[in-house]
């Protein structure tokens, strides 16, 4: 049976596990119908021209893991930012792990979507925010149809959340192939500030497909710093659908670090609903082998005096392929918009490739929009310079790649996270260099 049919027919089984009388379930029912019509995207669709899901859809994924498996903290410690105090929302094969988590209801809610969707005290937030900005395409609808678990974060107004929140999804290989569909909701109210780190980590070589949807609401003057670490095994694929709604004077930054996984697709969508909003997306992609990373961004400038900044760096080795598709829409009312977009790439091998496409739709006349993409090789004269100082070829290459991605790394505001990413990069490049950036 094809995955699509399997999923559609699994919906009935899913209905036995959730409260079908809740308003949320009407949304789910609607969504499964949409998925039935839309299905999975194909290369015939413009937005998927360079990314084919065929190779990841061919597995016979379990949709509901049958067994639960516990993990010991010591065995997965390295995937945590354990050097600092943080809130943690941890899932193992899609199931919440209270053992590894540290949630809170003390002034803020850092907890589970399953609670939020069922408990009366969250009803208002769910009514106001759940599935309000997620798009109605096939993949997001599929996630919506099966939405039951994930992270739920609500920061009421005037809170500076000092501890970062880590959301980690582990898959253990308990199932021969597993599909996960986490559903996250983040609501940050007026003047509040939150930092979130999200990571998906497979612990086995069994195929994993994650189709995740995250809705983020940055209300008036809120600041949201969101970091995505994508450094998974070559058998794990991720489709990340993130939707951000911003109100006036809010700042929302998403950093996406894509270092691994079989296929990674990041659909990152910003909607600016207010004035003087700052939307920032930055990314570093370093991949090799036959890995594929696709960044598909959208910034919708709806009101005047807002900014958006995009800065994506990509380094591609072996037969790796990359895609950057950055769409910026500036509505007629959105005068004085400043929109910047940069996508710089280095191809290390002759077989690696990148397709990069800026897409600007500007309907206002008093705006400043710029975009630039570059594709190049490593600078030979810089290599000679470093090597002539005694730095071997591999290390010299790594140093240049660090230099290349430096301005993205530099804007990571959590020092231990920056450190960790630096180490992942060094590891990825096979070097052990002592310079701290």
């Amino acid at each position, binding site marked *: 049976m094809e995955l699509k049919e399997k999923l559609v027919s699994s919906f009935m089984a899913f209905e036995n596990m959730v409260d079908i009388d809740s308003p949320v379930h009407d949304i789910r029912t609607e969504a499964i119908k949409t998925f039935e019509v839309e299905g999975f995207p194909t290369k015939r669709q413009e937005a998927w021209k360079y990314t084919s899901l065929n190779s990841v859809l061919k597995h016979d994924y379990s949709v509901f893991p049958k067994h639960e498996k516990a993990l010991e903290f010591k065995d997965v410690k390295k995937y945590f930012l354990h050097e600092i105090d943080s809130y943690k929302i941890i899932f193992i094969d899609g199931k919440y792990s209270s053992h590894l988590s540290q949630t809170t209801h003390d002034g803020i809610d850092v907890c589970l979507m399953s609670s939020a969707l069922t408990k009366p005290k969250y009803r208002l937030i769910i009514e106001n925010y759940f599935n309000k900005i997620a798009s109605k395409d096939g993949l997001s609808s599929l996630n919506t149809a099966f939405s039951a678990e994930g992270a739920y974060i609500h920061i009421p107004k005037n809170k500076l959340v000092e501890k970062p929140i880590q959301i980690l999804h582990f898959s253990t290989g308990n199932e021969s192939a597993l599909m996960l569909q986490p559903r996250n909701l983040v609501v940050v109210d007026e003047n509040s500030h939150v930092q979130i780190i999200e990571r998906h980590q497979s612990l086995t070589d069994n195929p994993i497909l994650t189709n995740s949807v995250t809705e983020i609401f940055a209300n008036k003057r809120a600041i949201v710093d969101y970091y995505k670490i994508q450094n998974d095994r070559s058998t794990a694929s991720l489709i990340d659908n993130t939707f951000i709604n911003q109100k006036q004077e809010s700042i929302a930054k998403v950093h996406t670090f894509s270092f691994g996984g079989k296929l990674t697709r990041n659909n990152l969508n910003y909607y600016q609903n207010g004035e003087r909003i700052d939307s920032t997306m930055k990314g570093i992609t370093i991949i090799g082998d036959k890995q594929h990373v696709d960044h598909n961004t959208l910034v919708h400038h709806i009101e005047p005096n807002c900014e958006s900044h995009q800065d994506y760096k990509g380094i591609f080795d072996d037969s790796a392929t990359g895609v950057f598709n950055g769409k910026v829409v500036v509505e007629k009312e959105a005068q004085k918009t400043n929109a910047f977009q940069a996508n710089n790439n280095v191809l290390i091998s002759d077989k690696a490739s990148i397709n990069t496409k800026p897409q600007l739709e500007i309907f206002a006349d008093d705006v400043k929009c710029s975009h630039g993409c570059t594709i190049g090789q490593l*600078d*030979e*004269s*810089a290599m*000679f*310079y*470093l*090597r*002539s*100082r*005694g*730095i*071997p*070829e591999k*290390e*010299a290459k790594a*140093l*240049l790649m*660090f*230099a290349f991605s*430096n*301005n993205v*790394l*530099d804007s990571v505001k959590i020092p231990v996270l920056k450190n960790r990413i630096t180490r992942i990069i060094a590891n990825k490049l096979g070097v052990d*260099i*002592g*310079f*701290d*950036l």
Partner: protein
Amino acid sequence: MLKIKNLHASVEDKAILKGIDLHVRPGEVHAIMGPNGSGKSTLASVIAGKEEYEVDEGEIILDGENIDELGPEERAHKGVFMSFQYPVEIPGVSVTNFIKTAINETRKAQGLEDMPANEMLKLIREKSELLDIDRKFLSRSLNEGFSGGEKKRNEIFQMAMLEPKLAILDETDSGLDIDALRIVANGVNKLKSEDNAVIVITHYQRLLDYIVPDFVHVLHNGRIVKTGTKDLAHELEAKGYDWVKEEVNA
């Protein structure tokens, strides 16, 4: 220390060096002068091991060992240093971190442990004082936004840190005002010893007022066409290069 025998080198099938012979002994300073396009910078790059240059004939021998086939980093590990005419900017890597990496990679190649942090700090302090370098300068990104003078001073600082056996200064004087020139030359002189040697590549004589050469070679059309003492440099300054060219062609 360095023996270059009948060196022919080309880039993209274009012959640039056409038979260079040069013998540099420990403690010596050699100046290589010549008009633009004579092959001066190529000679420096070929000795340092730049891979886009093809050695077609001849050999480069360092302390009795043929280094033709070695990569630039291996030559550096053996004590070759080249100060670049156009140092490359490396954003995000500080001068300090860069030099630490260079020193420790060289030590690793020599089978030594990393230099202890306190020793490194002491060395950095000592050498930066020698070259009148501000501490703040050391935490800046390597060569990024440096003025011409700062870049050259930074090159000599790296040389001071790495203590090479053979230092090649490629047009180190270009783009320097007189004060910067004096500081750089002064640094080079303080680093001179009986055990190391310096090759100064320059178009003009003025640097040689400060770094006094034992030998001056004139490079023309890929060959050393004249060798003399420092007086030759003065003669070239006064009369230009045309008379040398004429002498060669006669």
